[in-house]
């Protein structure tokens, strides 16, 4: 039985091509791998190889033929009798239409459900309500800086799980460039607290690989500005692997460090990357403001099975906050928090912007405007419900974000309000962001470029028509 050789497609979009040259003639014996012909399109040339062995029986399409449709029989191979049957068997089942991907999709449309049914159900079920931990009456509160809270979170988790290690520049002997890892080397030793060379791309990849291999890395970037060198591993390696592997290969890793503008360090060291990472499916992005969220969320991030980008802020590291003295204090990922209640206008913010918003809210109160301040805390997945609930209550909303306005978290919050909160809006949603320029060095220009309470107050009054 003869084997039909069909015009191959060089790419899924190719429909026809030129049969430029035959490199065999009728009667030639061919073995698999022999080049039979050259096929050309306007984009590329391909050598067409034999897969089966046998004798070229007939050349159906002569060389030099233009516009030969994909799937056209171009030659026949006479099989070696016994071998021919087994090889030819799958071929005749393919009709011309079968070789076209479009046609196939229709054929495949009725999906086989049984295997995935359970997962669909699981996926449509609402996420279990996960609330902030109850703080029992009489719980001691203690003041702690954000810096200490982050360190305590890592230390507590490292005591719990020996797969966790901390890696980054100056995290060990130097005790952390910003002293966030202070004391960890003493307690956990050099096998678990690891100084790296200045090689962000490399050590982010090492961290991602270690996570794929079953460990729980916490990778510190001295600042997230340097993580741009490593963003390929954060996105292409860490964020996409679980999906690309059909859920088989996880990458439980935390990338953490200070993000956003510091003080007088110029444009290359002063950028908020929250919108960059929050754009990426497969990542969890967290940006806490106060010490208790910093601690409770970092602990949750380290325990998560997903890759987490944990954005801190250098200017906030030294601020002290009251923290409940509770064992194993975990704050849920994906839940915003109302940090000040109010009925007149909602101010949505995160990270250092929350401090600015609280200052603005205090001043607004003096003028008789009660602002509700929402700390998003997690930027991906974003707590849409919390935003919309507050909007339904106040009917006016602004966003305060220490970062550029274009394609920002603020843009996303505005989109949510438009899509799902339109009927609740009594005024356009406004955003208060940094000026749309690289951050300047000069003190006066830097101040002019960054958000402040004045601007937040002004925007809040504007949406209140005051």
């Amino acid at each position, binding site marked *: 039985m003869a084997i039909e050789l069909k015009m191959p497609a060089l790419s899924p979009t190719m429909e026809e091509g030129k049969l430029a040259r035959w490199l065999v003639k009728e009667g030639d014996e061919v073995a698999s791998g022999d080049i039979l012909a050259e096929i050309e399109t306007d984009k590329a040339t391909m050598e067409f190889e034999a897969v089966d062995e046998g004798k070229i029986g007939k050349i159906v399409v002569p060389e030099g033929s233009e516009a030969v449709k994909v799937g056209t029989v171009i030659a026949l191979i006479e099989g070696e009798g016994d071998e021919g049957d087994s090889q030819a068997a799958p071929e005749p089942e393919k009709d011309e239409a079968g070789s076209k991907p479009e046609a196939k999709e229709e054929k495949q449309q009725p*999906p086989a459900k049984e295997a995935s049914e359970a997962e669909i159900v699981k*996926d449509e079920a609402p996420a279990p309500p996960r609330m902030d931990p109850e703080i029992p009456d009489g719980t001691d509160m203690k003041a702690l800086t954000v810096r200490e809270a982050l360190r305590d979170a890592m230390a507590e988790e490292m005591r719990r799980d020996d797969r966790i290690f901390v890696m980054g520049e100056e995290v060990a002997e130097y005790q952390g460039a910003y002293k966030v890892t202070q004391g960890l080397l003493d307690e956990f030793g050099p096998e678990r607290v690891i100084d790296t*060379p200045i090689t962000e791309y490399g050590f982010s990849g090492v961290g991602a690989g270690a996570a794929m291999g079953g460990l729980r890395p916490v990778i510190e970037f001295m600042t997230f500005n340097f993580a741009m060198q490593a963003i390929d591993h954060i996105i292409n390696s860490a964020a996409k692997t679980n999906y690309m592997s059909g859920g088989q290969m996880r990458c439980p890793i935390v990338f953490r460090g200070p993000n956003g503008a510091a003080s007088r360090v110029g444009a290359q060291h002063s950028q908020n990357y929250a919108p960059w990472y929050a754009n990426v499916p497969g990542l969890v992005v967290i940006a806490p403001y106060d010490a208790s969220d910093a601690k409770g969320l970092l602990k949750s991030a380290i325990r998560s099975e997903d890759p987490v980008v944990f954005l801190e802020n250098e200017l906030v590291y030294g601020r002290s906050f009251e923290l409940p003295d509770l064992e194993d204090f975990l704050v849920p990922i994906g839940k915003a928090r109302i940090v000040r209640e109010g009925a007149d206008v909602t101010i949505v913010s995160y990270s250092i912007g929350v401090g600015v918003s609280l200052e603005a809210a205090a001043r607004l109160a003096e003028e008789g405007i009660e602002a509700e301040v929402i700390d998003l805390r997690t930027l991906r997945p974003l707590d849409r419900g919390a935003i919309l609930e507050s909007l339904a209550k106040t009917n006016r909303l602004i966003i305060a974000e220490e970062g550029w306005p274009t394609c920002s978290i603020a843009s996303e919050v505005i989109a949510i309000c438009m899509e799902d909160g339109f009927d609740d809006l009594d005024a356009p949603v406004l955003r208060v962001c940094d000026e749309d320029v690289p951050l300047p060095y000069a003190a006066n220009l830097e101040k002019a470029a960054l958000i402040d309470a004045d601007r937040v107050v002004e925007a809040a009054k504007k949406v209140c028509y005051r």
Partner: protein
Amino acid sequence: MAKAARKSAPPAAPDLDEDDENFALRSLQQAHAKNRRYKADKDELLKLYEQMLLIRRFEEKAGQLYGLGLIGGFCHLYIGQEAVAVGLQSALDNDKDSVITGYRDHGHMLAYGLDPKVIMAELTGRAAGISKGKGGSMHMFSVEHRFYGGHGIVGAQVPLGTGLAFAHKYRKDGGVCVAYFGDGAANQGQVYESFNMASLWKLPIIFVIEDNQYAMGTASRRSSAETHFHRRGTAFRIPGMDVDGMDVLEVRQAAEIALDFVRQGNGPVLMELNTYRYRGHSMSDPAKYRSREEVQEMREKHDPIERAKIELIGLGESEEALKKLDKQVRALVSEAADFSENSPEPDLSELYTDVLVERY
């Protein structure tokens, strides 16, 4: 090999510091030169031959299915390079060692003993594929078999593999990671960041450069200042080995020397496997950057499968038996192709699964 003439040039670097006893950058190459080929008995060689043949036939079939429009996007075939994956894999301890590679990954998975059906079904984008049809040709993984991909970004697997080696050392599980990459990837900066850390921390990893002589269409001599890739670890104190990647028994023997060194806690080894890909970089390759004669010469004179076949006959295997084996392999591949064509595409509900592991 095409490279032989170039390599006969005298070494440019002066002799290394003889006073430093630990600086044994050429010791593995010397051990390799003394004993180049593994002494395989007939059964051992037959097994290697069968694995190489399976890869060859599988890839030929994949090329054919691509031509029929059943495989989409990019598809990088391993034809010509079979001895590299098969020779190295045969020396590994499958219970503890890990492997990672780039996008030319079908051959490595087959060498690892993964079912050709689930690989082919991934290539055709079906639910039964090893990544549920969500990864494709370049993104396949089997954590169960310690095969960690299947990575589409050139060179990314090198730091990831270094991370896997870090995990072996951290857990003290005795495993070694083998990280494969090409002569093209060897020019990525992250490769050298990884060399530095792997050597600094004495991580159990073998860096394997599969030098198939072309980075897409750019010959290594046009892209690389140092084409003796095994020397590229020198600056990081990583010993190198220069190996004929067209001879499965040489690959196997070299792998044993490297593994022995790494398992003793000496840190990484860099192996250069000189090989050749017969087919294009991917399916749509203009084939204009090298002559057909060059390709034919490699196929006719250096084919790893033909070479093993001749040796098998020399060891007393009958042509009859080899023909029968070829038929079995073809049947296995045909079965995989049928399976990959006839199994259903993923359910649409799979679109939103596996984005995150947990719910928040």
